C-alpha cells in the first residue's frame, strides 16, 4: 500500500524541536522528508540538509522533493534550501555552525535534516549519541528544528532506546507519532502490532523524564488495540507500583471504550480522563 502517512505526520502544531523519523523503506523516508521540507518552506524557514549521491540507498534530496511536488531548485535559488557536503555537515561544528550562520544572516527559523546512516559511518555510536543530546539542547535554546532519519532495522542502529530518549520532542514512524504535552507527551496515529515496540520504548523514555506523574494525551490516537493497552499497563507497572500515576487524557470514544472494557482505569496508579470529562457507563 502507498505510504500516505507523512502529510498527517507533521501536522500537530507542536512539531518543532529535535524530531525522529523512523523509516523502513526509501518511500517512507522520502514521504517524511518531503512533508517536513514542504512545511518548512511554507513557513519561510531556512532548511539545511546533506545527502550523498554516492551512498547507496539514500536518495538525493532534490530528486526526492521533485517526486513529491516540491520545487527544491527554486528554494535553493531563493536561499531557503542549503545542501552541505557530507564531510562538512558531520564534522565537529558542522551543521550547527551552518544553522547559527543562517540565524545570524536574518533567517527567523532554521530546520536541519540529518541521516543517521551517514552519521554512523563517520563517527562511533557514543559520539553520535552525544551529538544527539547536544542537538536536543540546541533546539531548546534556539529557533532550530532538527529531523533525524533512522532506519530502525539497520544493523548499525540497535540502540533504539537511546535514540528515542534523545528525540522525545517528536518520535515519528509510518503510522504513529508523538508531540510534547504538559506533563508528558501526546500520541497520534494508529497503534497496533507493527509499532507496539516503538510505543513501548517511547513510553519508557517518557517515564524517564517525570517523577510522580506521566501524562499521555491520546486524543489523536485513532486506533489502539489490546496490545497497545497492555503496553500502557506493563511499561508503567514499576512506576505505578512505586507510587507513580499514569494519567491517560482525552482518548477518542472507541479508544476510551476499549480501555474501560479492559479495566485499565481501575488499575492502581492509573487515571483515565475522558475527553468529555464524564465516564462511560455500561461499557459491556
Amino acid at each position: 500500500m502507498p505510504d500516505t502517512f507523512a502529510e498527517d505526520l507533521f501536522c500537530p502544531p507542536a512539531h518543532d524541536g529535535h524530531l525522529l523519523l523512523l523509516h523502513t523503506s526509501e518511500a517512507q523516508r522520502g514521504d517524511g522528508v518531503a512533508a517536513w521540507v514542504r512545511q518548512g518552506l511554507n513557513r519561510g524557514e531556512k532548511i539545511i540538509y546533506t545527502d550523498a549521491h554516492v551512498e547507496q540507498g539514500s536518495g538525493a534530496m532534490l530528486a526526492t522533493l521533485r517526486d513529491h511536488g516540491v520545487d527544491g531548485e527554486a528554494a535553493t535559488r531563493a536561499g531557503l534550501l542549503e545542501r552541505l557536503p557530507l564531510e562538512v555537515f558531520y564534522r565537529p561544528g558542522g551543521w550547527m555552525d551552518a544553522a547559527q550562520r543562517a540565524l545570524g544572516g536574518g533567517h527567523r527559523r532554521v530546520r536541519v535534516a540529518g541521516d543517521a546512516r551517514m552519521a554512523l559511518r563517520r563517527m562511533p555510536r557514543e559520539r553520535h549519541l552525544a551529538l544527539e543530546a547536544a542537538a536536543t539542547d540546541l533546539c531548546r535554546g534556539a529557533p532550530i528544528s532538527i529531523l533525524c532519519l533512522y532506519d530502525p532495522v539497520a544493523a548499525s542502529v540497535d540502540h533504539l532506546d537511546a535514540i528515542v530518549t534523545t528525540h522525545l520532542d517528536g518520535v515519528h514512524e509510518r503510522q504513529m507519532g508523538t508531540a510534547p504535552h504538559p506533563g508528558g507527551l501526546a500520541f497520534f496515529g494508529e497503534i497496533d502490532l507493527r509499532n507496539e515496540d516503538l510505543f513501548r520504548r517511547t513510553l519508557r523514555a517518557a517515564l524517564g523524564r517525570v517523577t510522580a506523574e506521566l501524562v499521555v494525551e491520546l486524543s489523536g490516537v485513532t486506533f489502539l488495540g489490546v496490545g497497545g493497552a497492555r503496553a500502557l499497563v506493563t511499561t508503567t507497572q514499576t512506576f505505578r507500583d512505586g507510587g507513580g500515576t499514569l494519567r491517560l487524557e482525552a482518548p477518542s470514544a472507541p479508544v476510551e471504550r476499549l480501555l474501560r472494557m479492559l479495566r485499565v482505569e481501575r488499575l492502581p496508579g492509573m487515571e483515565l480522563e475522558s475527553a468529555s470529562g464524564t465516564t462511560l457507563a455500561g461499557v459491556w
Partner: protein
Amino acid sequence: MVTGQPTAPGQNRGCTHDAFVYDSDEMLLSGAVPFLQAGLDCDDTVVVVCSYRKNALLAAALGNDPRVRFLTQRSVYQRPPGALATYQELLERERRRPGRVRLVGEVPYPDGPQERDGWFRYEAVLNRMLTPYPAWVVCGYDTRELAPDVLVACELTHPSLFKESASTPNPLYQEPEEYLRRPAPLPDPVQETSPALRVDDLEDLRALRDGLRVCYDGRAADVPGARDLLTAVDEVATNALRHGAPPVSVRLWTTPDRSVCTVTDRGEGFDDPVTGYLLSNASAPLSGGAGLWLARSLCDQVEFVREPAGFTVRLTVHH
C-alpha cells in the same frame, strides 16, 4: 443435598450452580426468599439480578433489606464474556469476606436462536468460572416466559437443581467441555457469495482496517456492530500474525442484517472450547487472553473451525 439454611461462616465454601425452574410468582418467592434470607442471616453477600418486576417483587418480600444488592439485567447480561467478567470481578472482591455469595439471576434470553445459544454456552462456562469461589448461584427459569430449547439447555448446563430452597444433583448435567464441544460450525450461507473484502496474505493491519472501513463506505460508526467487529477482527488477526502460521487470510461478507468475517492461518489453532470466554483475572483483563475475550465481548458469535488446511476464527455481528 445442600439446604438453604444458614451455615457458619467459613463453612460450605464451595460453589453451587443451580437451575431453578418455576412457573409462578408464588413459586419464585417461596423458593428464592428463604434462600436469600438465609444468606442475610449468616452474613453472606446477597445479590439479585432479575427483571425490574421480579427484582421489585423480591425486594418487597425481603422487607426491602438494604443489604441485598439488586442489579439490572441490562447492566450485567449484555454479552456472555462481559457477564462472566462482571460476576468474576464481584466474586473476586467478595472472596476476602468470610461468608459466601448467594446470587439469584435470570438471563434475559433473546429471541434469536444463535444469541440464545451464546447464553446456553455462557451457563456452561459459568461452571468453570465459579470453581474457585465460595458462591451459590441460582439461575431462575420462568417456564411462562421461556422457549422449550432454553429449558432443555438449562438441564444440561446446571450441575444441580434448586427445589424447595435446596440444591439436589442434576443427573442430566454435562461437563462444560462436553457441552461446548460440538461439531464444527457450518459455513454461514453468506460465505458462498463473493466476499466484500479478501486479503490472502495479511501483513499490514492498518491496511486491513482501511479495507474493512471501505466495505462500510467509511460509515462503520453508523452501522450497529460494525465498529466493534473491526476492533474484534484486529485482535483476532493480531493473534493469527503473532501465534499462527502464515499466510493469514481474511474475508468479510456484509449483508443488511449481519457481517461475517473469517480470519484463517495455516497453524493448528487451539482446541479449548472455553477460549475467549474467561479472563485469568477479571480485574486485570490484560493479564492474558484479552484479545479473544474482547472479540467475544464485541461480537454476537465467535466460532473456531479446525481443519487440516488451517485454523479459522469466524466472527459474526448482527446489525
